[in-house]
């Protein structure tokens, strides 16, 4: 238990009060929105940086839990932002937590939605523009690089023990799931369910 307490204590949250906290949550996600290339998962490492390292809303293992929750729950997995907002507001009580959760989700979606609406209304004008071609082809490799960095970051967040060391059984499960995701069409819910059972049996520690 104590190492976790130590780790949390080492991250000092600057307390702004409930409204100040809400405003900060909303501003942080508003300013990231337009950088969600390639479907939004590219922002996961930034979310970790904000909520764990910078503002201490969550511990690293709580972040991993919320990521898994958002992947397992029905609906777009990009809704993890709502869970991070919820975590940021949790110390102020459930009411502020929910407000902060809804606020965070609205904030991450609003700028990209406005751009998308403008894009739909003027698509005919730039469908064949060189800007569009260059953007589409140029952003692909960048997205590829980001996704590998995000994958590594999530593995390093999820598969660690309380003492901060890499959990070997955890890494093995992650690698097996990664291969199965690429080679089979089995629903990932099965992988999470089976790994949950392994965890309950004490085979995957952290």
């Amino acid at each position, binding site marked *: 238990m104590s190492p976790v307490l130590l780790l949390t204590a080492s991250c000092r949250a600057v307390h702004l009060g409930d409204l100040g906290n809400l405003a900060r949550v909303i501003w942080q996600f508003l300013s*990231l*929105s337009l*950088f*969600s*290339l390639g*479907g*939004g*998962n590219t922002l996961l*490492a930034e979310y970790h940086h904000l909520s764990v390292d910078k503002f201490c809303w969550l511990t690293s293992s709580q972040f*991993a*839990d919320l*990521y*898994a*929750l958002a992947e397992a729950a*029905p*609906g*777009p997995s990009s*809704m993890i932002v*709502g869970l991070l907002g919820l*975590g940021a507001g949790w110390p102020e009580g459930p009411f502020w937590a*929910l407000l902060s959760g809804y606020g965070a*989700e609205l904030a991450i*979606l609003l700028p990209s*939605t406005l*751009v*998308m*609406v403008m894009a739909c*209304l003027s698509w005919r004008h730039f469908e064949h523009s*060189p800007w569009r071609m*260059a953007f589409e082809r*140029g*952003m*692909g*490799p*960048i997205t*590829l*690089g*980001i*996704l*590998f*960095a*995000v994958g590594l970051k*999530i*593995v390093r967040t*999820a598969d660690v023990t309380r003492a901060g060391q890499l959990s070997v*059984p955890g890494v093995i*499960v*992650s690698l097996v*799931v*990664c291969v199965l995701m*690429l080679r089979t069409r089995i629903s*990932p*819910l099965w*992988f*999470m369910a089976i790994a*949950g059972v392994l*965890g*309950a049996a004490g085979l*995957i*520690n952290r």
Partner: protein
Amino acid sequence: MTEPAPAPLAPAPDLRQLFVGMLQVALSAFGGGLSAWSQRIVVEQKRWMSDEEFLTGLTVARLFPGPNQINMAVYIGANFRGLPGALAALAGMLLVPFTLLMALGLLYFSVHTLPAVDRVLAGVVAAAAGMALSMGFKILGEYRKDPVALGLAALVFVALAFGHLRLVPVVLVSGPIAMAWYWPRRPVEP
């Protein structure tokens, strides 16, 4: 008659119909397959748009920032009713799953310190990390024959994972370089 004429499209949906239609997509997709359901309901059942318009939407949704499935809802709504339509479609798409997720989140923060819950989560999280790890490999094949793309991706990866640089500056620097390299050399056919 060589081939049957395509069935005529339905009249453009109003805000309420957009909201209800996207709600229907979200509810049908419980358990996965959001984009397949959205095509089935919007194109085949409701006949709001043709297959071709829907595919254009997917292209636009993937190109612009934002989660693909959510951008697709925005495209469908904006296509018919502009910004209000986009917001109605978005609300329909997110209302039920997001509320459910918030309830799950409240439950999580109330019980996650229980040892039994923590043990189960330790396993679930390892599997979820495997899913995150597979994302890059999934699109790696597209760039197999493009060494410049692979080099660019490797630079971005190293900058983020080992250089401890943040995403925003990395994208702001590498983005224009990549766009300049991939600028179409021949004039684009209209």
